């Protein structure tokens, strides 16, 4: 159902529901029951139309969020790479510290 059609149907349902509510208050007992059943039927139909429309939008948001998830995954990998670079710098600095220590001890022994 196209959006304009949907809106037209909803408008009609709401207007009939309103008329029913007004009529129900002045109607006699058997008619009152019939009117209320019609109201419940229309109310259910309106709810279903609204729910489907909302669900359609939420499904769209879910589908776009998957695209963004892929970007986040790549960015996360880059963050891991950066952590790895920082760790490599740490390892190199540690290695140099150890080498200096060895070289110094070696020099002491030679002197």
């Amino acid at each position, binding site marked *: 159902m196209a959006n304009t059609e949907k*809106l037209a149907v909803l408008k009609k349902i709401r207007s009939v529901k309103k008329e029913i509510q007004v009529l129900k*208050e002045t109607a006699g007992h058997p008619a009152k029951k019939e009117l209320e059943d019609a109201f419940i039927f229309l109310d259910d139909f309106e709810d279903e139309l609204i729910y489907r429309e909302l669900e359609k939008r*939420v499904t769209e948001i879910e589908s776009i969020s998957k695209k963004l998830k892929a970007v986040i995954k790549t960015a996360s990998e880059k*963050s891991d790479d950066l952590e790895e670079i920082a760790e490599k710098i*740490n390892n190199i*600095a540690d290695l140099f510290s150890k080498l200096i220590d060895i070289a110094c001890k070696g020099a*002491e022994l030679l002197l």
Partner: protein
Amino acid sequence: MIKIVSVNKLKNRFKWLAFSVLLTFCLTGCVELLTESQIREIKKFSAASNTYSEYPGAVVKAHADLSLNNQLTNASSAVNGKNAFGMIEKGIEKQKRLVALGKRADTACRILRSYSGILDKLSSDSYTSDTQASVEKLGSQLDYSIKEYNQTAKSSVTLFGGTVAAILKGTASVYIKNKQHTAIKTAVQEADPAIEEITNTIIAFLETYAGPNSLEILQAERDDLQTWYETAGYKQPLSTSIWVLEKLKIIESILMFVDKSKKAATDLRAAHTVLITKIEKKMDLKDTIEVIETLVDEVEAAKDLKDKIEKQTI
């Protein structure tokens, strides 16, 4: 003595050479560093999207409660108990269905939070600060070794561990900040179409509640309540009127919330556009100055490290 002067000269030349090379790279645009204003922009976007991610779900939840209330009002004037009970049951069922939908919207929108989280992480200074301790240790070890050597060999080689650590820290920081800039630039460029799509869809979703040519869900709930009150509710005790008044106020608040949420989605989109412009744009003089300031900050931080090491070893 001649040897010591040479070491000092070499040390200074190396320091200035390293700084000059980095500065030249910055000025020619070969090295793009993550600047303070870019980080500020990321933080702004991050704070906005963090809060925003909960809005669409909150609207559905409010709708669910409102809808149950309207079923209760209808039940209170039903023709028989069976119908009344059926209306209450339907209200509960409808509320459950909408709450579940709201949760789905929440989960999907939480991706905005994850996105801002990763931008925060990529712009954090933890990558550079992590290298501080090991570089500091290297500088101290070097100075300690020179001191030991001076004592053993009765020589007077100047301590230069602090300088080595400062150069190493400065170079590592600039290298990492350049990598951070590239990673953020790629992320925001790749995310931009999805950010545009998701904000547009959220706006369309919110417009089903209140907007031009929309389903006008909230207005319909209000109309239902009004018609019920005008035909049946007004006959009931004063507490019913107070209850209706409360519901009307709630509907008014939800309408305002929907309106603000729509505006916030537009602002979120705009904030991402600003962010992408800020990250992507070619450097003008102001940006170049900021990049140099970033570089100078790194050099200053490295100098602080040098001073710290020299204080420890003297």
